[in-house]
């Protein structure tokens, strides 16, 4: 099971859209993933370290070092393959490298 943390700014639940997009597509591609969706200001170092991959809506800065590999997932929100597929491809290649 691959654990992924999706994150966005508060307000309209973009991270939940990212979560459902990733879960749906990665399942199709045959991977067992679990995605949690959170608001970026709720993330701390301990939480981050519990995940295999960090998938924020866009590039984000933290006061601590982000250890999991980062895949920017914002383009998934467009819900069109030309935007979303490169993100899913990158996720897949990162998952393969995790070797879990």
């Amino acid at each position, binding site marked *: 099971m691959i654990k992924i943390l999706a994150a966005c700014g*508060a307000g*309209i*639940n973009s991270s939940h859209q990212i979560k459902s997009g990733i879960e749906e597509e990665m399942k199709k591609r045959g991977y067992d993933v679990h995605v949690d969706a959170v608001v970026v200001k709720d993330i701390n170092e301990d939480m981050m370290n519990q995940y295999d991959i960090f998938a924020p809506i*866009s590039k984000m800065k933290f006061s601590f070092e982000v250890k999991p590999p980062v895949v920017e997932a914002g383009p998934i929100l467009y*819900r069109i393959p030309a935007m979303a597929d490169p993100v899913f491809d990158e996720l897949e290649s990162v998952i393969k490298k995790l070797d879990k």
Partner: protein
Amino acid sequence: MNTILMSLLRNGIMAVIQQNRIRFNLLDKGGVYLDSIKSLFDRELIFMEDAQDQEDIFNRIGKILHEKGIVNGDFTDALIEREQNHPTGLDLKPVANDIPNAAIPHTETEYCHSKHIVFVKLSKPVLFKNMIAPDQEMEVKYLFFIINNEKGSQTNVLSELMGFLTVADNVKTLETLESKDEIYQFLTEQTIKN
């Protein structure tokens, strides 16, 4: 008594027609429609504005929404600050090269008193940063302010709006509409391509 029965019957029939229409649309085109968020648009919350920049339009719309009791007095400042930290510009180039960009400004639920989508067509574009690449700036002409007072609800608003905006013809139609009435009708009554 008869009138009441007639009205109940009529409402029932209308509800069935409406449901079938939604089902037909979904089956027909396999997409998601503005149908489920149509009720969030309001004729009084459709604007055509000539603004100097992003802060100008945020101040104008924030003032009107506050006067209408839709948001509280801190809304505009919160909106401006949130836009700086988490921008909401949507680059529509991936959809088509010849359509203007949009944005979905919003802020935390605590500043809002109700649920609405406030639509603004700008006569000339203003600069926004890209939601998915905040270091990029772009010109934006269509604003969909998302007003939401309940945490955890409205999860479909973003996906519905995205479904709408990623069809180039929808944005092209907005370009041709010159009155608030036409825009309101297009957003709420017409069957929108998706």
